[in-house]
C-alpha cells in the first residue's frame, strides 16, 4: 500500500484522464472459513451473532476492495446492528401476528407499512454510508424521507401499474436517490442517469421477457393444460390431498416463469447500473465507470445460484467471492490530476463523525 502513496504527479498526468480500476483481493478459501464460522455461531447463539457475522463479512469484502492503492473499510458496531435488527424483527412480528389474528386489519396495516418502509430504508442507507470509509474518510447519506418514498413506494406503484413499461422512470428515481445523495467526506456526489439511456437498457430485458412468455405459454397450453384437467375433478371434496397436488403442480409450472423473470431482471439491473455509474460524478471531477457485460452477469448470477443450491449452500462463499471479483473488474474511477494532492484536502465532516456509536441500522437494502 505504501508505494501507492508515493508522489506520482507530473505536469502531463495532471491534465490527462487516468482510469483507476477497482481491485478485489478476497479469495474463496479464506472466505469459506469466515462464512462457515459465521453461520455456525449464528445458529449456536440463536441469531444474536448474526450482527457480528455481518460486520466480519462486510469488513472482509470492503477491506479487500482496493482503489488507487487504498482499501475501503466498514466500521459498524455489531451492537448497533443488533439493536436495529431487534427493532425491525419486533415490527415484523407485530405485523404478522396482527395479520394472522385479525385478517381485516390487513388493509390498514399495509398502509402503515407503506409509510414506514421508506423511513427504514432511508435510515438503512444512511447507516451503511456513514460506517463506510475510504482512506479514513467517511461517506455520508443526505437523502430524506420523501425521496425514499418516491423511489421505493411511488416507483413500485409506477412499475406495477405500467406492467414494467415505465420501470426506467422508477430506476432513475432510485439511482438518483441512492447515489446522488451520497457524500464522500465534505464532497458531494451527483448521479443523474438520463431517461433515454435507461430506456436503452430496457429493450433487451423487455424483449426477452415477452418472447419468453409467448414461448412458455405456448408450451403450457400444449403440455400442461391436459395435466391440470385431470385434476380438475379432484379439486373438490378431499380438501388436503387436492390442495397439495395443486400447489405442487403450480410450483412446478411456475419455475420456468420465475427463471425467465429472474433473467430479465438481471439483464435490466446490470444495464441500469452501467448507466447510473457512468453518470455518477464525485466532487465534480471524478467519474465512476461501470462496464458490466449483461449476459456475463446473468451467467455468473445463475450459475452461482445453481451451485449454491446444489451444494446445500456450501458453495455460497465461492459464489460471493466470484461475483465480488467480477463486479470489481468492471468498475473503475476516471480521475484527472493528482489523487494525492486531491486527498490531502479531504476530511470527514458533519454527522458521519462517530455515527457508528449512535446510529441504528434500519432496513439493509445494500449500497
Amino acid at each position: 500500500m505504501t508505494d501507492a502513496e508515493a508522489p506520482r504527479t507530473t505536469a502531463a498526468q495532471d491534465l490527462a484522464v487516468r482510469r483507476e480500476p477497482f481491485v478485489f483481493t478476497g479469495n474463496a478459501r479464506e472466505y469459506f472459513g469466515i462464512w462457515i464460522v459465521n453461520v455456525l455461531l449464528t445458529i449456536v447463539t440463536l441469531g444474536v451473532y448474526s450482527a457480528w457475522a455481518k460486520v466480519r463479512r462486510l469488513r472482509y469484502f470492503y477491506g479487500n476492495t482496493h482503489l488507487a492503492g487504498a482499501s475501503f473499510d466498514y466500521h459498524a458496531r455489531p451492537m448497533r446492528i443488533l439493536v436495529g435488527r431487534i427493532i425491525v424483527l419486533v415490527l415484523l412480528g407485530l405485523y404478522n401476528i396482527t395479520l394472522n389474528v385479525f385478517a381485516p386489519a390487513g388493509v390498514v396495516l399495509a398502509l402503515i407499512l407503506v409509510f414506514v418502509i421508506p423511513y427504514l430504508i432511508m435510515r438503512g442507507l444512511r447507516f451503511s454510508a456513514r460506517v463506510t470509509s475510504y482512506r479514513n474518510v467517511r461517506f455520508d447519506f443526505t437523502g430524506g424521507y420523501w425521496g425514499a418514498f418516491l423511489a421505493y413506494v411511488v416507483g413500485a406503484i409506477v412499475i406495477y401499474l405500467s406492467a414494467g413499461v415505465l420501470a426506467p422512470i422508477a430506476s432513475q428515481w432510485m439511482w438518483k436517490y441512492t447515489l446522488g445523495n451520497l457524500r464522500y467526506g465534505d464532497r458531494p456526489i451527483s448521479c443523474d442517469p438520463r431517461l433515454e439511456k435507461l430506456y436503452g437498457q430496457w429493450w433487451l430485458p423487455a424483449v426477452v421477457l415477452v418472447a419468453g412468455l409467448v414461448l412458455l405459454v405456448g408450451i403450457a397450453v400444449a403440455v400442461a393444460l391436459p395435466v391440470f384437467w385431470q385434476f380438475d375433478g379432484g379439486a373438490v371434496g378431499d380438501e388436503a390431498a387436492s390442495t397439495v397436488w395443486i400447489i405442487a403442480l403450480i410450483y412446478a409450472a411456475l419455475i420456468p416463469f420465475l427463471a425467465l423473470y429472474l433473467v430479465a431482471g438481471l439483464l435490466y439491473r446490470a444495464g441500469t447500473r452501467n448507466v447510473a455509474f457512468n453518470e455518477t460524478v464525485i466532487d465534480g471531477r471524478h467519474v465512476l465507470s461501470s462496464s458490466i457485460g449483461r449476459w456475463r452477469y446473468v451467467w455468473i448470477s445463475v450459475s452461482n445460484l445453481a451451485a449454491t443450491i446444489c451444494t446445500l449452500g456450501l458453495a455460497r462463499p465461492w459464489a460471493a467471492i466470484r461475483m465480488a471479483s467480477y463486479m470489481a473488474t468492471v468498475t473503475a474511477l476516471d480521475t484527472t490530476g493528482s489523487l494525492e494532492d486531491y486527498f490531502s484536502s479531504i476530511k470527514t465532516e458533519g454527522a458521519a463523525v462517530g455515527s457508528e456509536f449512535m446510529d441504528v441500522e434500519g432496513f439493509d437494502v445494500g449500497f
Partner: protein
Amino acid sequence: MSDSEAVGGLWREAGAAAATPALLDVAADGTLTVRTSADGQELARQAIRSVEISARVGTIARHVTFASGGDFETSDNDGIDRLRDRHLGRREGLIHELERFRPRLLIFVAATIALCFAIYRYAVPVLVEVAVLVTPPAVTDIMGKSVLMSLDQLVFDETKLSDARRNALDTQFQALVAAARDMPAASSPGPSYALNFRGGGQIGPNAFALPDGSVVVTDELVDLADDDEMIMGVLAHEIGHVEHQHSLRQIYRVAGITALIMLIGGDIGAATEDIMTQGATLVALSHSRAAETEADRYSVQLMHRTGQDPAAIARFFELLRDKFGLGGDVTFLSTHPATQARIDETRRYAEEVKAGKR
C-alpha cells in the same frame, strides 16, 4: 527488542485522507508511539491498553485507532498481533483462529448441517407445541371469525338449504360435539363449536374447520352425500382438526421454519433464501398428511362413540372416488397418502375399533 517489533504502515489524522508513511513501535512499559518513517518525528503516543486495535479478518488491513481519532493502518497482520499479544498478554484472535482454512472446518460444516437438521426436526416441533399452549382462546376466536368473514366476501354464497334440513343436521352435529367433549383427550374448556352452512361457489363440495370451532360445510357436500351419516363422518373429521389444533400448528410451523432460514439468512444470498422459504412452505404442507390421518381416525372413534357407522368417512371418500375418479395409487412427494390407501387405512381402523374396544 523494540526495533524488531516495529510495524510499518500509514498514519492519518482524525478523519483525514492525507497519509504519512509511519512506524508503530512499543516501549517496554507498553506505550505505543507512531513516528514518521522518513525522519522519526513523533506523531502520536498512547498506552497500548487504551488504543483500539481492529479485529483480524482474513488478510485485510488492520487499524490502530488512537484517542485523538488518529488512525494507523498496516497490512502487517502478524506484526500487529505479535505486538498486541506480547504487551496485552492475552489473545483476542479467537474467532480468526477458528476461521483459518484448516481440516477442522469440515467439522464445522458437519456441525452446521447437523444443527440445522436438529432444529428442524426437534426444536421447531417443541416450539410449535409451546406456542399452541400459550395462545389464548381469544386469539383463535378472532382468527376464526376474521377468516370466515374474508371467505364470505371472496368465495361463499348464502346457503340454499331449507331451515328444516339445516336444523336436522345441526342437531346431529351437536350430538357429535357432546360426544367429543367426553372423549378421553378432550381439552378442558374446549372450543365453542358452531356449524355454518354456505353455498360453496368455486370450491364446490367441501367442509373445513376453523381454529375457534367454527365448522363450515357447503350445500354441495350436503347434496352429494348419500346419507346423513356420511355428512356426520366428515364433520367428525373436522371436529378432529379442531381438537388437535391442526391449523394453529400449521401456522406456527411455517413461521418457525421461516425464522430458521432467516437465522442463517444474510450469508446465503437473497435468491437462495427466497427459494428455501418457498420450499419450506411446501414441506410444511406435507405435515397435513399426518394431520389428515389423525383427523380420519378421530372421525372413526367419534362416530363409533355416537353409535353410528365408524367407516362413514371412508364411504364418503369412496363416493368421491367413484364420482370424480380421484383414485389411483399415486403418491406425489409423499405429501399425502393416495386416496385408495387412505380409504383402506380408515376402513381397517374402523374394523379394529368396532371389534376391539367395546
